[in-house]
């Protein structure tokens, strides 16, 4: 399951996508909209994606996690559009025969997604908004 969508993220289906009889360990990362960022109260976030390229990049990340980091199955879902505080922005699930690989691959995926996938967030505060440039 590799998805960039305005629909709310369905965590059970993300987890179901990485199930397998030989996969003893599953690690899931969830990124949620926080009520605070850069010292300011956040009211909501807008996420914009270059959809087709973001999907291609997510697919290539999934492949690298399998080839280079020991992941068996990978699910990557990123939400776009307007999100309230507490909503899920991203979900990444990785299964592997043993837990160590699942932890390493999952953390590598979120770190690399944040650097490489063409998705942008705009933070809305009481008195304005700004596009965030986290990874030049």
């Amino acid at each position, binding site marked *: 399951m590799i998805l960039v969508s305005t629909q709310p993220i369905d965590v059970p289906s993300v987890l179901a996508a990485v199930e397998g009889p030989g996969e003893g360990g599953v690690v899931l990362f969830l990124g949620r909209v926080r009520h605070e960022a850069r010292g300011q109260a956040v009211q909501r976030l807008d996420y914009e994606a270059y959809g087709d390229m973001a999907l291609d990049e997510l697919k290539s990340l999934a492949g690298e996690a399998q080839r280079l980091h020991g992941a068996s199955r990978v699910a990557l879902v990123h939400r776009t559009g307007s999100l309230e505080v507490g909503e899920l922005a991203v979900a990444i699930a990785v299964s592997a025969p043993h837990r160590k690989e699942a932890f390493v691959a999952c953390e590598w995926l979120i770190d690399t997604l944040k650097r490489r996938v*063409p998705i942008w967030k705009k933070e809305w505060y009481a008195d304005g908004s700004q596009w965030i440039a986290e990874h030049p």
Partner: protein
Amino acid sequence: MRVLLFAGLAELAGRRELALTVAEGGLDVARLVVRVAALEPALAGRSFRVAVNRRYAQPADAVRPGDEVALIPPVSGG
């Protein structure tokens, strides 16, 4: 040639794509960046990478008419 704009770059330019006239032989990415800045001064000096056909490109890479070109400002997904 369409050049897609996103996020802060789209806001600066006030539009989501630029139309660039390109010779049949194309040009390289470095030259494309110069052309973009000339066409849309609001983007001059801004930080972005260039994607050609949905892949990050290097300055010396070729761009041809018909390619899908996009300017990718610093990302902040996740």
